[in-house]
């Protein structure tokens, strides 16, 4: 069963591979509390005490690491779908 064209499936394939690699790495960086990514955390602009801030940041880092890994998993699914479609398209074109 084919529902993606050859171009769409190839596009999906590339973005999925890229997404898996980059999101896995970003998850790792969030997990090790990378400072470079601090601007992309779901935290407030201002906290009253440093402990509050650290707690919020720690939670946000963990949360984002998890989110990134889940997103990478979603990309594994899209990778599987695109691969399947890609080969289905190739087989169809080689038959014709």
């Amino acid at each position, binding site marked *: 069963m084919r529902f993606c064209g050859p171009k769409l499936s190839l596009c999906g394939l590339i*973005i999925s591979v890229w*997404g898996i690699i980059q999101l896995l790495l970003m998850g790792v960086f969030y997990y090790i509390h990378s*400072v470079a990514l601090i601007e992309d955390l779901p935290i407030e602009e201002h906290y009253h005490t440093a402990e509050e801030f650290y707690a919020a940041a720690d939670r946000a880092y963990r949360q984002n690491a998890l989110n990134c890994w889940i*997103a990478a998993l*979603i990309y594994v699914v899209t990778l599987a779908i695109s691969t399947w479609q890609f080969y289905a398209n190739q087989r169809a074109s080689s038959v014709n």
Partner: protein
Amino acid sequence: MANKTQYRQIPTSESQIKKRAKMNPLFRSEEITLCQMFIQPEAAYTSVSELGETGAVQFRDLNTEVNAFQRKFVSEVRRCDEMQRKIRYVEAELKKDGVKIRDCQEVPRAPNPREIIDLEAKLEKTENEIMELSQNAINLKTNYLELIELRHVLKKTQGFFYDENVISTEAMRNNMTQEDATGQGANQGRGRLGFIAGTIQRERVPAFERMLWRISRGNVFLRQAEMDETLEDPETGNTLYKTVFVAFFQGEELKNRIKKVCTGFHASLYPCPSANDEREEMLKGVLTRLEDLNMVLNQTQDHRSRVLHNVSKELPRWSIMVKKMKAIYHTMNLFNMDVTKKCLIGECWVPVLDLHKVQKALSDGSAAVGSTIPSFLNVIETNETKPTFNRTNKFTRGFQNLIDAYGVASYQEVNPALYTIITFPFLFGIMFGDLGHGFIMFAFGFWMVSGERKLGAKKSNNEIWNIFFGGRYIILLMGIFSMYTGFTYNDVFSKSMNIFGSKWRINYNESTIMSNPLLQLDPSSNDLMEGEIYPWGLDPIWQLGTNKIIFLNSYKMKLSIIFGVVHMIFGVCMSTVNHNFFRRRVYILLEFLPQIIFLVLLFAYMVFMMFFKWVLYNPKAIPPHSPGCAPSVLIMFINMMLFKKSPPLHGCNEYMFTDQELLQKIFVFIGLLCIPWMLLGKPLYIMCTRKNNNKVHNGHNGDVNQAMEMTPETPEELAPAAHSESHGHEEEPLSEIFIHQAIHTIEYVLSTVSHTASYLRLWALSLAHAQLSEVLWNMVLALGLKSDDPIKGPIMITIMFAAWACFTLAILVMMEGLSAFLHTLRLHWVEFMSKFYEGLGYVFQPFSFKLILDETDE
């Protein structure tokens, strides 16, 4: 005798050839000589064929005054044209039947005369066979079509006649006896009503109907029914939609008129018996005939496809053979016939390194026909400008094309392509500096390079793809260099990497941090670790700074000027290689020296001051060398040019070192002196040499004459050469030389300023690239990362990542990459190459079968 003396110039010895080959083929275009070849007429075809296989010779047209129809081998070329026409016809037939033409694995050689006749006969036979087959097929199909139509007519009319019966009986009921219900009454009615049955194209039906109405004043009764089956036009293969009609009328007169209308509308009429039984019988007969015909048709189709399949295997070979043959005869048309008609004379440009190959090809050609008299090759001296030939490989070809797009180098001029291999990707990298984007580009380039055999084999007509594929090595190198500069700028998709550990520390206490939105780190305090710097590139802490852009701008601007000045100085230095090679060494003194002095004293001095400023001032030093005292290099440079002063801050020095003011004045003074030097040096030199030359020249001529009396053979060729050379110079009047030099000088002086400024595009594009990628991250990907919800978060990240990836590819890699590429190209063409490159040559176009076949493929 003369021939023999010239013959010696061909470097036949191995060592000589090796020495020449050792020179980098990209450094300057290859040495080329004009040769004359004398070929026996019977060996001409095979010799030219051999030369075409080697592809090392560019023939010159010796019959320019003769038009294409009066040349010697016109009839042969016509024969080839005829064969090509046949091949095209067969190809079209193959395409019509959807038979794939496979590329032939090995390229056949040009056919020899016997093979030509065979080939011609084969082509003739194939063409006739296919033509006959298609004619037969058309006839059969026409028959088939007619039968099908008849079948439809018979079937459809069934209904009409039934309806008609009802109508006519009803009509008859009024005035006739009611005893016979159907049969007889209908027969009687039909006896008076005539009819015509047939088919007509569907789009013509309304007009046809109206016409019938008009000619009969409404007395024709037309019944029609659309055929549900689509038919095929036997000749064109188009689909036809037809309608069956029956026209009922009264009287012979009307019948004739209707028939005329039918022929006018190209309606085909079919005999249709009026009796039901007869019709049924006829239908049966039609059906059996149809079946028979179908079988015959299938058989012809089988036969045709068998023939076409056989041809399709041979066709590419034939096509290549004919193309080669035609190319050979075209080339032979460029040759001259000897007066005695004993040999053909051709003139050609040959790269010196390939002379032995050409000689081998000639001897092979003669040997192939068993000719006893060898063909031979003479090198002749010429003053004409020779073609430019750079031997490239798949790696260097792309870079050479970049240069050739600006202008083909003059013969043996220094070739910028060699340096472009590194400078081009490097300058591109400065503008495109991002490790992530660079990696994408590198991956794309690497994919194309690693699969180049496979990708190159399938020829694509997509122009954009062909451009990318042609420049695959450029893309690969650009990717690598962008990764390098991206690493130096510490940018990966606008994020920094803290690989070696930032060398800045935050020494503020908690309450200060909590109460201040922004805090400054002071490099003079111990915020910056003592004696330590980030080992490579930008310290990652800058990513969090609000003054990152201000800092980077100053840094990248200086970097662009430094690279620009170095690049330009290199360009100016390349001109010495040209002056030296073309024996104009005096121009090194008259042109290169003032140019380089001007550039170095003013602009390289500015570059020096940048470095000096970096070294001299540091944050922990006391006032004259503290950061606040550091003067702006740009202001300093302007003051230097205008002899102005700007008052320094309290406790600072205006100049960085003692006697700087004096030194600057001397530099400006010498720089200004260079302008009249450039302006007048060359014209005055030419003026002087001309005066001397005239004297010397007269004497020299006398010498030659004397010499000629003693040894008449040797210097004969030298004298006219010397003559024409000196004449060539004298043709340009002195005033024009002065004007040219004035333009040249003004251009150079102004260009040093404008070109230096032009290199600032390195900074501008790099800034734009970095900012765009940062904006894209913050506006798109950060949206996904900042969502707090544990369920919505991953989904948002997935969606936003896909959007971010697409934009990154489309805008940052494709668009920005293209823009950086164009700016790099401009920096090379204008800023670098204008310093030494003439680009007035014309390209060496060898007679090569490979090139001819590649061209016709596209």
